[in-house]
């Protein structure tokens, strides 16, 4: 699977752009703020129907414009696929595959797997549990269709249930039958999602450990621990025993919407004890494990988006990462960087031809693909 062409209208700082890619490696090179990362984000949009950086769709439309358009031409198992994302200000997002509109965006997610590695990933460690749940969800939903549908239903039920708890508090009343119809639907969905998340973490954790050891060339014991209220067993019982608290707090205090991941190194949580360098290795290993996991489960090599990693990583980590990428288990690659010579040298060293696009303030100039390397 790879992206052949990308065209943009009014996306972020691009009034208009048309790019044709190499099926191997592509680099967007330009100063900070030139818009090179926005090109990676456009590719992310086409796969997961949203920006990696800004969840407010309307803010991704170019300032002053009324609409935006992202179109990609993909090669999927030798068949051409045209993916279209259109958004008018204040209206709902429209996604089309070969000119046929999707009824639900969830139906598109998973068709074109993608993994982004970006400096903002540090939020996975520093921010609240929501970031870590998003990380799990974005991986599982790329290979398991029912997971995303169930998760959407689960979240909606929780929202209805919370609204009901608020109404009880406002009217100083309680209606058990009304609450029960939501609880009866919530419990099986929570059980199901818990099993899926649990399974995922137990398969994912060893892959992560393996990548971490490769990158750091160390034998440190790192792991990911899944924490959930559902570990206590019978979720229906948990729900009813927390009813008093829920009524007092006016929201649902127990459930998989409170799940978390704890990253540990040695015996310590990474949040507090790891050095900056360790944290970076941790994040890169997480993302590479994500890549390998999706590839193993779906049989498709995800598109890999590397945002600004040469600036943020030290040379030894970059070298290890590039050694990995140069093996044939990676697919199409997109990378953003501030220095054209640096990126060209790194890719020359690993023997992968790279197509370089020079980006200046929402304008892209593409350089011809360098001649293919002769096999040694």
């Amino acid at each position, binding site marked *: 699977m790879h992206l052949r062409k990308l065209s943009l209208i009014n996306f972020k700082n691009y009034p208009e752009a048309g790019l044709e890619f190499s099926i191997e490696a592509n680099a967007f090179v330009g100063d900070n703020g030139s818009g090179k990362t926005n090109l990676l984000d456009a590719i992310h949009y086409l796969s997961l129907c949203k920006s990696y950086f800004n969840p407010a769709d309307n803010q991704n439309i170019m300032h002053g414009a009324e609409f935006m358009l992202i179109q990609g031409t993909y090669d999927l198992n030798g068949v051409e696929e045209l993916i279209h994302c259109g958004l008018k200000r204040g209206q709902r997002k429209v996604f089309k595959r070969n000119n*046929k509109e999707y*009824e*639900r965006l969830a*139906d598109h997610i998973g068709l074109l797997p993608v993994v982004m590695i970006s400096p903002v990933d540090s939020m996975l460690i520093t921010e609240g549990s929501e970031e870590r749940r998003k990380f799990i969800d974005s991986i599982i939903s790329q290979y398991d*269709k*029912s997971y995303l*549908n169930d998760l959407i*239903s689960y979240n*909606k*039920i929780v*929202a*209805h*249930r919370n*609204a*009901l708890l608020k*109404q009880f508090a406002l009217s100083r009343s309680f*209606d058990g*039958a*009304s609450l*029960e*119809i*939501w609880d*009866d*639907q919530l419990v099986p969905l929570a059980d199901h999602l818990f099993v899926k998340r649990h399974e995922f973490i137990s398969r994912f954790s060893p892959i992560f450990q393996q990548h971490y050891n490769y990158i750091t060339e160390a034998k440190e014991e790192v792991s990911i621990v899944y924490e959930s209220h559902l570990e206590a067993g019978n979720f229906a019982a948990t729900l009813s025993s927390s009813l008093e608290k829920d009524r007092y707090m006016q929201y649902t205090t127990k459930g998989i919407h409170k799940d978390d991941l704890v990253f540990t190194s040695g015996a310590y949580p990474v949040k507090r004890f790891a050095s900056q360098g360790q944290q970076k290795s941790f994040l890169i290993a997480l993302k590479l494990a994500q890549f390998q996991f999706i590839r193993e489960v779906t049989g498709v090599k995800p598109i890999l988006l590397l945002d600004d990693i040469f600036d943020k990583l030290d040379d030894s980590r970059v070298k290890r990462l590039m050694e990995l990428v140069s093996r044939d288990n990676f697919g199409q690659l997109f990378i953003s960087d501030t220095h054209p010579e640096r990126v060209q040298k790194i890719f020359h060293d690993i023997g992968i031809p790279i197509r370089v696009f020079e980006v200046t303030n929402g304008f892209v100039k593409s350089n011809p693909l360098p001649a293919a390397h002769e096999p040694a």
Partner: protein
Amino acid sequence: MNSFPSKIFEQAVNEFASLPGIGRRSAVRMVLHMLKQNPEEARRFGETMIRLTREIRFCKNCHNISDSELCSICADHRRDATTICIVEDVRDLLAVENTNQYRGLYHVLGGIISPMDGIGPNNLNIETLLEKLKTDTITEIIMALSATMEGDTTVFYLYKKVSQLNRPELKLTSISRGVSIGDDLEYADEVTLGRSILNRTPYESTLVR
């Protein structure tokens, strides 16, 4: 288009624009059209609107809109009074009626359960339904609610309430949901297609009679 030469004109535009699906541009076109008509037609239009809100009634049996105590469907003795089709609102009732496939009676709930919109079972016509079901005349109720979480939840609630009536012979059915007629299977989403497989029907019943 924000300021008009006449206040009366502007007021009329505002009234039309307050209707669902009518933007200001269309509202202006409608008001200009009104002005072109002869005064008698405009008067009739206005009076009909006033009568509509003053005189319309809701059927005491099914909550359909009606001119009298019982709506024309409930009053029609040729209809099958043993079957009740449960719909969210009058619009859905009209949709089922327009299929010309249904000869039973209806029950209009007046909405579906949705706490996020402040709608609970007490805001819906559920008590009158349960009251009706206590008698033996009704043998089947058909749930014709939207295939949304709120629609499903309402069906689930009604199912629980009806089960408590202790009328085991009462049949509870739901309209089938699945692949639309004329749709390519390849493009049907997994949830819909999965449901269609589970709710498959004997082929003979699909033959046009």
